[in-house]
């Protein structure tokens, strides 16, 4: 059977259907959700990352869906990631769970940009990039609140680490 091809947005829609938003909300233990506050004022480049901890079952459930979402269309090779807004400062965000590779923006906490903010407001958004394309798709919890954004990116080199 000839494989059917899907748009990146359609893949994101399918992936988001299976993503447990409640797990994304609780992917860090409660005492770690505001982890940057634990090392405020430290100059060590490694200190912030040392404070990160996850609830493994929630993380693994999300990671599995991301890896499988990347495989929905065998003719495409996108990579997937989940972004959240920082609870202590919603203007900032970060990748919280990555699939097969890291977004090119990296793993640090950073100011969110218009396309991803649009998705955080509930509207799936396509971002054409120099060499490829990214789509951002809202991820909801069981109360239908938006708790994150699914990124799918193709033909943009991921962050190397």
């Amino acid at each position, binding site marked *: 059977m000839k494989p059917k091809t899907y748009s990146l947005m359609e893949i994101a829609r399918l992936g988001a259907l299976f993503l447990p938003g409640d797990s994304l909300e609780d992917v860090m233990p409660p005492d770690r959700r505001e982890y940057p506050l634990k090392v405020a004022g430290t100059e060590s480049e490694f200190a912030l990352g040392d404070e*990160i*901890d*996850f609830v493994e079952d929630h993380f693994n459930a999300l990671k599995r869906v991301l890896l499988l979402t990347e495989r929905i269309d065998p003719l495409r090779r996108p990579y997937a990631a989940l972004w959240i807004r920082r609870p202590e400062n919603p203007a900032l965000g970060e990748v919280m769970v990555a699939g097969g590779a890291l977004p090119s923006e990296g793993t640090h906490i950073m100011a969110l940009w218009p396309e991803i903010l649009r998705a955080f407001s509930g509207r799936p958004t396509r971002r054409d990039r120099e060499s490829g394309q990214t789509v951002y798709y809202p991820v909801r919890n069981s109360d239908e609140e938006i708790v994150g954004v699914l990124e799918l990116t193709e033909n943009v080199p991921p962050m190397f680490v």
Partner: protein
Amino acid sequence: MSSSYLIHDMIRVCPQTGELLEEEARAGTLAELSERSSELASPRNAYVSFQLIVKLGAAGPSAIRFEAEAPRSGWDEIGANEFAFYAQWYHRVQGRYYPDALVPLDGGEAGPRTLAAISAANEVEDQAYAAVWVDLFVPAGVGAGDYRGAVRVETGSGTDVHEIRLRVLHTAVPDESLIVADLNSYADNLSRRMDSLRSNPDRYEDGTYFRTEQAFFRMAHEHRCLLHYLPYEHSGRIPAAFIPELEGKGKEMRVKDWSVFDEHFGPYLDGSAFADTKRGAIPIPYMYLPFNFHWPADYAKFGTKGYRTEFAGIMEEFHRHFTERGWLRTKFELFLNHKKRYKLFPYDGDETRFVWDEKVNDIYYDLAKDVLEKEDGARFVFRTDASWSYGLHFEKYADLIKLWVVNHQMFSWFPESLGVLRGAGCEVWTYGGAERISRPLLATAISPLAAVARGVDGFVYWENTKWGDQWHETPDSEGSTAVFYPGDRLFGLQGPIPSIRLKVLRNTMQVADCMEQWIRAQPEAGRERMGEAIAEAFDLAPGAWWPGKPNFLDKPPYEWENAMFSEAPKASLHEGRPSETLNDLKRSLWAILG
């Protein structure tokens, strides 16, 4: 009046003023230093290094020539071809010029690697002195005794003759290092950091990459170090040239083709990559395996029987293949480098801080145990890199994990751990980083000597190829993440050029290997005697390498705060010691060893 100086290898010189850059040096001036540097001593099968500092005349470096005369004893000779000359390259660090990169001089009067061409490319402001690093290899086959030779330096205004008085010892440095000096890096940073590889999309297929990588491995080997190149990214992704091609999934997963893997790694594992080095065709003693959280097993299956099937099945194939190929002198490491800071996996396989992450030790040991517990064939070991949780883990995991690579500061808090790990048949290395260029050269000597004093098996510099795009001006992190530099962009060399710090590391490794060889010949009190020699030369209190425990060890590591570390005990072995201290140690050591 002489316009050139022969000086020893532990003090660098400012190219603008001729001042000594090592602030703790006993010698005050270049002339004074030169007077103290004329006597050299070396074991056989070893390099002995010195420097030539030339005051530039009106003609600049273009008039400078070097010629070596073979050192002779009454009955033997060390060939003039055993001399190697390197131009010292100056970097701008903390507002000063420091030499670090060493560019091999090509010996001709024209070309890209004459002293004149290198100096012109270096563009040191107001340069008044040029410097050359000289390695002289003393072959294993020459007789012990006193040798006389010379180096002639033509400066344009005349010729200086520097007599070399070399005492060759009976002692010989062993070809195989008895301590592992491990230079770590991450694949495939060479392709990202070498211009010539970055611009070649066919580098893995056309042989370019393998040749270039081998040049790095050979340079490490020649300097008594091991290049240790982790083949996977934090995501688990691996460049195709670093793994065999697989086919199938689940029970059908198997190796389809070993050919590229064998071409890549075979020369390191049978030693043939090192056939033309002074140490000879010795296989690398350790190598990372590519196994990780997401290879060969699919992490989407993590926790299922299918994950085990894929992981264990391919590991069994690796063991069978390595055994059939006769790769029996290398220890192959299962090492899980993943860190949750990168949000790709929920566990820290590396440097576990949160104690509940220790479960990955149990999970992956269980997945690999059929191979790890084999008594025949290729040797596979489970490795951990420990810091935060070392004090909680060394007893708990001594039976599962056989290679412990431990943060050097945290290791020093637990002297009692060494006996526990030794008792379980484990090997122990410490880890830290290369010294910054602005630090005294003596600092680079500490890791090998501390390994001898403490009785550990090796030490690791965690990153060694991150020189930075502007390395020729100021290397990244002042050089603390690189002991090599790329030779391609500026000098047309398809491989690395060494650094002064790498040379000092090699020269100290020779000392450490001689000490370790002597200790093994007298196991009763040998280590204590060598520890005393180090303590005496460095004016240290007995046991200074075990500085005591911090007061926060009663808290779990995830409650430790960054600020606590600044107050925590730290072994300080070289601070304030004169740069000549290593030479003092060598003198007393050669008197013991002969």
